[in-house]
């Protein structure tokens, strides 16, 4: 073993320089020059400050905003410095009671709707999922229309603008970006908020 130590150590140093320093640095340089927006986290800026990343969800609980997936990160939901799923197993009572709580929270504002889309009541894998399904967005339209005094048609237009279909018509699932949708809602001049909101 001893006779192999010199080649082992020296070739390890060569690999460390090549794959641990040169390679990541080269990728960083190319990434920062070709795709600076993506490489830095796809951040959304308003005036002089950053209000989010279009790839990272935020927590919304007010009835005037679209809500995203349930987030299991701690200590606060959508903690992007510590991603985590719930890891609740399928036969865990804690899972069914969390789903029940979320169903109740949604029904509190709107009793007219039928079944709740499953992605609305379950935790995402990352705790940072920026998307909900189009069904989940549609489910919330009535609530938001009521609390913002907006027509449902107008809201559906906004939802459609923030909806992405399958990539190349094929890959993945159709989805609505919740943060972008809520930013669009706040920007919309006709969406008059009640005073003090």
């Amino acid at each position, binding site marked *: 073993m001893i006779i192999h130590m010199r080649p082992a150590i020296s070739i390890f140093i*060569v690999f460390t320089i090549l794959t641990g320093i040169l390679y990541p640095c*080269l990728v*960083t340089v190319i990434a920062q020059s070709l795709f600076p927006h993506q490489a830095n986290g796809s951040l959304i800026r308003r005036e002089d400050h950053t209000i989010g990343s279009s790839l990272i969800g*935020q927590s919304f609980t007010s009835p005037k905003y679209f809500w995203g997936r349930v987030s299991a990160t701690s200590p606060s939901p959508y903690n992007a410095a*510590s991603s985590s799923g719930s890891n*609740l197993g*399928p036969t865990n009572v804690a899972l069914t009671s969390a789903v029940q709580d979320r169903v109740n929270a949604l029904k509190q504002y709107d009793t007219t709707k039928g079944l709740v889309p499953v992605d609305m009541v379950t935790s995402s*894998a990352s705790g940072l999922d920026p998307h909900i399904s189009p*069904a989940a967005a549609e489910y919330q339209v009535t609530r938001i229309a009521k609390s913002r005094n907006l027509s449902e048609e107008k809201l559906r237009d906004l939802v459609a603008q923030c909806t992405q279909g399958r990539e190349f018509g094929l890959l993945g699932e159709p989805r609505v970006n919740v943060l972008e949708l809520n930013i669009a809602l706040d920007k919309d001049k006709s969406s008059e908020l009640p005073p003090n909101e």
Partner: protein
Amino acid sequence: MISNFLQLLIYFSVLLVCVKPLGLYMAKVYGDKKPTWLGPFMRVERWCYRLCGIDDKVEMHWKTYATAVLSFSLVSFLSVYAIQRLQGWLPLNPESLTGVSPDSSFNTAVSFVTNTNWQGYGGESTMSYLTQMLALCVQNFVSAGVGMAVLIALIRGFARKNSTTIGNFWIDLTRGTVYILLPLSLVLSIVLVSQGVVQTLSSYQAVTLIEPTSDNTGQPVLTQKIAVGPAASQIAIKQLGTNGGGFFNVNSAHPLENPTPFSNFVQMLSILLIPAALCYTFGELVGDRRQGWTILAAMSVILLPLVVAVCLAEQAGSPAFESLGVDQLASVSQSGGNMEGKETRFGIVNSALWAVVTTAASNGSVNSMHDSFSPLGGLIPMWLMQLGEVVFGGVGSGLYGMLVFALVAVFIAGLMVGRTPEYLGKKIGAFEIKMAAIVILLPCGSVLLGTACAVLSAQGKATVFNPGPHGFSEVLYAFSSASNNNGSAFAGLGANTPFYNGILGIAMLIGRFGVILPVLGIAGSLAAKKAIPVGPGTLPTHTPLFVVLLVTVVIVIGALSFFPALALGPIVEHLMLQSHMLQSNR
């Protein structure tokens, strides 16, 4: 449903198209006829050997080869351990993360050196950028390079006659790493950045929340801190090298690690790309391409039905939600199914396909939380690991494992007709079969005995997260993953404790070196034998019959070894869920 089927079809078609060109290229890299454009690089390569005191004219006996593998792995281990312990004092640590604890450092060092990439820690809250690059990223490359080198040594064992040597480890390691893994990673990482994967050395980004929230103590939270870092460069090699260690805690479920369905597609493709193409390389190097296609066919025959099974299990949704007013049916506007622990952009089909692909290969990266899968949807990934990671498996390690199963298959066939077994023109003797038995039994024993130790000890039970049989599944999954060098987890299990860090570290060492050493022994023994011509009594090993035989051997050994353990975990949980029996933590 049609779109689900189409996505599976596209995936496997693209994979199959890549097998031949990449397989042929790899055969040239390891073989005698090098592609001409490599010329200038090979001059640098020779210069590096001189600098490192390596004589590239000298070939190695299998014992020398094995000692070189062990020496290199030891140096790697010490380096990864030291960098983690010292990261608090080292540069490129914008979040001022402190040194990692001794037990966690040991576990992570073993994990990355053995190509397991089991992670007891959360990436963004534990590892500095320097540790990610200099310790983990380097191991992603070289641990994969070691696996491929050992495979090539075994293939030389079949291809050579009356030879005392099986190649030079340093050359095999260097060529695999530099000419195969590095260029592919470079291309893949740029594609990933274009999709939104981060690649920066600046500190975490602070964002002002649109709607303030509060933490679990009721304190208001006004900002969101977004973890970033040099992720794309690492994710590319984590997939191509079947490593699977995520940059962030939730691995490829994280939107900055896997932002779009297209990034998801190329990552899934990279997981199986090299393991599949190596089958072709094998056929090319032993001089009979049909042998390579046969192995690939056997792997696919096991894989495809399991993909469909997990899709169906996850699409069915949870019977426990039926009475809660939840819509779990798939429609044009939602994927439906069991969405707990899954991301909206991937839905059911891409989460299920990924789960099967990542456990079939010994990759272990995840894009959904396997702990929240339905009982049967979780059983299949677990069983794929327990099969010994030979259905595609890790780069190199998957195929050398499968070739060992092929030896067992010809041995069993030989017993049935009373003839000395042969494979690829070599007589298979007692030594080879003894070594093959070690290769198959050591990881099996490590899974079952490790699980038994953990569930019998208070420390093992203390950090189980879910109640009932699912809690047992968490432990069984952990040992299946570590002992077969996969690295994925039922992540509810709190594994960052001295107990699990230690025992899973040992399981990973057994699963890696307990297999590599006997495989190199087989390589050395076969290389020394003379080739025998094909006779009327030779079992042809390129036929559908042999595919059936090989698949049967793999499945029977896997099923017999693990059925009792699986019955205590996912199978009983499935029956409970169907009869609406739920469990709570008292």
